């Protein structure tokens, strides 16, 4: 199928992009990498009259890292740029794992990290990582600048809390406090070009009261979900034993609410949430107590 006709605007700065979006209102859609929106336009699932292409807006590029503040990812930073970024590799293990599990090496040259999050598809690989690092979305729009906590950003499948005319400029993932270790485990049927059946991100941090854990899940609920009870069960334990892992895994399964679809059944997903929670927590605990910090 061909895409339906549309007008393409390619603003050269952020103010023009916001102006363009404001002028066209709901007739317009934003495009960053385009690897999601172009597929949807091919299928006629979305039919914008105007596509506002952000790829020439200089304010949206780049990745910067400051140890006291964290990593700031520009809206146009590609999945490969983030996945191979030196500081991300050292300090943001779950983010890098998620990037390298996304689609395939070619699509990752085009797809953006922020775009994956804004698209708000429940299986979006970057979403659990943004959850565990408690990202902050930096937004610019007709009302000026504002920050949105990631916990408030995704409101449902393909829905985010941006107001009309607003654009995500960048996102900051604060630096985990103290020593930390993190990973993202994606369950799919093949290694490349697959959507997650279940995705689990785990971040373990060495705090003053011992180890602290954050757990977030993809593809098993309409909105991103943190397993708060499982996190509490694990808190303080540097090397959780089987019994503790089992309790945490059960609590994690109780926190999610998966559907049955073409990729997996609800029961299977629940069972995999348990298993992958055990694995992710074990990996992070081992790395935290070992010498490796990721």
């Amino acid at each position, binding site marked *: 199928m061909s895409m339906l006709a549309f*007008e393409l605007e390619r603003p050269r700065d952020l103010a023009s992009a916001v102006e363009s979006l404001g002028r066209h209102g709901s007739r317009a859609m934003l495009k960053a990498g385009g690897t999601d929106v172009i597929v949807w336009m091919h299928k006629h699932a979305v039919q914008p009259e105007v596509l506002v292409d952000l790829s020439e807006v200089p304010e949206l590029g780049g990745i910067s890292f400051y140890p006291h503040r964290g990593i700031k990812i520009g809206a146009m930073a590609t999945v490969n740029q983030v996945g191979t970024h030196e500081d991300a590799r050292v300090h943001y293990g779950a983010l890098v794992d998620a990037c390298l599990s996304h689609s395939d090496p*070619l*699509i990752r040259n085009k797809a953006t990290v922020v775009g994956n999050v804004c698209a708000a598809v429940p299986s979006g690989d970057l979403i659990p990582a943004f959850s565990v690092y408690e990202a902050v979305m930096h937004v610019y729009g007709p009302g000026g600048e504002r920050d949105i906590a990631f916990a408030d950003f995704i409101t449902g499948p393909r829905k985010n809390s941006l107001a009309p005319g607003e654009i995500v400029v960048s996102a900051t993932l604060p630096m985990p406090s103290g020593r930390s270790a993190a990973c993202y485990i994606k369950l799919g049927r093949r290694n490349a*070009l697959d959507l997650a059946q279940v995705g689990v991100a785990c971040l373990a941090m060495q705090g003053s009261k011992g180890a602290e854990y954050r757990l977030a899940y993809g593809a098993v609920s309409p909105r991103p979900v943190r397993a708060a009870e499982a996190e509490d069960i694990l808190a303080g334990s540097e090397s959780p034993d089987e019994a503790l892992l089992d309790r945490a895994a059960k609590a994690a399964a109780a926190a999610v609410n998966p559907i049955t679809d073409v990729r997996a059944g609800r029961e299977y997903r629940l069972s995999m949430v348990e298993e992958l929670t055990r694995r992710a927590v074990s990996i992070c605990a081992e790395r935290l107590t070992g010498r490796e910090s990721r």
Partner: protein
Amino acid sequence: MKRDVNFILNGRPVTLSVEPRTTLLRALREYGVTSVKRGCEEGECGTCTLVIDDLAQKSCMVLALEVEGKSVLTVEGLVAPNGDLHPLQQAFVEEGAIQCGFCTPGMIMTAYAFLRKNPDPTEAEVREALAGNLCRCTGYIPIFRAVMKAAKTMRELGSHPGAAR
């Protein structure tokens, strides 16, 4: 409404007149560059892969108007002016890495961009690099062999012969 897009195609400046909805894949095929294959047209199969400013991209995911001012390389641009094949192309022929040929240009362009960044890869790295290109004939093994062979040839030659850029 059609608009002009100006870019470098295989070392030569071109201007194409395209609609905003025209993908780079369709624009190039219309222009006569038929090495970029229209497979799935949803970013899955990799048969439309080409290189834009040193990065391998699936051209069905790129709007033609997006390559304004950029350099686009397709497999046609790998052939030397005297007609000699690029070492990657030669290795694909010699190793039997081609059966129906539909995936071949995309495979070669992915491998080309990959070897520029990683001229001395392990086979595992080659497999990972080609994960976005599907082949339904060869079972991939001859393709991996061809890329490893071409990498060796190119290291010995110390350059990318025949390349337009």
